[in-house]
């Protein structure tokens, strides 16, 4: 695991391409942190959903707004924050996508996937009122300081 916290901050344009970029950055960090391939995929997908949320619902595809993403590696956790410049929301406002009456909805599964793929998921407010999504994944126990798996 990393000896001290490492942090990457990226300001993304409100563009479709930012979704792929954010996913790619988070997957590289996860890979370097020693997560196995399937976990790297899940982290990338959770971050992708976070940025889709910011792009579609937070910033309403307004190209003048930005999406701020930070990726941090702490001694025990990988933490990803995605902040938009929208009006924010409360998790309690979001319909349960697993409820029978919502199964045929064509949207509303992104937050569920973030929660499913990460160990912790929180929704807060940024300093200017936008939604800040925080996703935390515990680092693999078998990772050494150089980011490689140690033999068991």
């Amino acid at each position: 695991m990393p000896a001290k916290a490492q942090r990457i901050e990226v300001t993304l344009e409100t563009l479709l391409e930012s979704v792929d970029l954010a996913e790619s950055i988070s997957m590289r960090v996860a890979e370097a942190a020693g997560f196995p391939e399937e976990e790297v995929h899940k982290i990338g997908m959770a971050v992708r959903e976070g940025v889709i949320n910011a792009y579609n619902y937070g910033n309403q595809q307004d190209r003048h707004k930005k999406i701020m993403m930070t990726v941090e590696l702490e001694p025990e956790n990988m933490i990803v924050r995605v902040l938009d410049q929208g009006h924010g929301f409360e998790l309690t406002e979001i319909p349960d996508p697993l409820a029978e009456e919502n199964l045929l909805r064509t949207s509303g599964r992104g937050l569920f996937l973030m929660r499913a793929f990460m160990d912790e998921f929180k929704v807060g407010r940024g300093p200017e009122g936008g939604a800040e999504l925080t996703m935390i994944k515990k680092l693999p126990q078998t990772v050494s300081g150089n980011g490689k798996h140690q033999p068991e």
Partner: protein
Amino acid sequence: MALQGTRRQLGDVVIVDFSGKITLGEGSATLRKTVRDLVDSGSKKILLSLYDVDYIDSSGIGELVSAYTTVKNASGELKLLHLTKRVHDILQITRLFTVFDVQSDENTAVHSFKS
């Protein structure tokens, strides 16, 4: 990889072999257009083969649900065939296995449509 769909016909069943990602943007749009075109041309039995689709995001899931309701509203049937593990897992955790008829054998799938 951008989503690509190749159509073939077995009796009155149209099979679309997809390859690539069904994600926000081009992938979802390709799926939407393919299904819309089939419904507009009168196809009632549609089998989407996802053997080469190893990535789907929430937008792609929404598009699959939309395809399902579009075909159903046109009095047709839409089924899924050959899911990859990742797509299978996503449909499972989102409970969409209870919505879609998911098949693993093409011949069985073709014969499972109502006559």
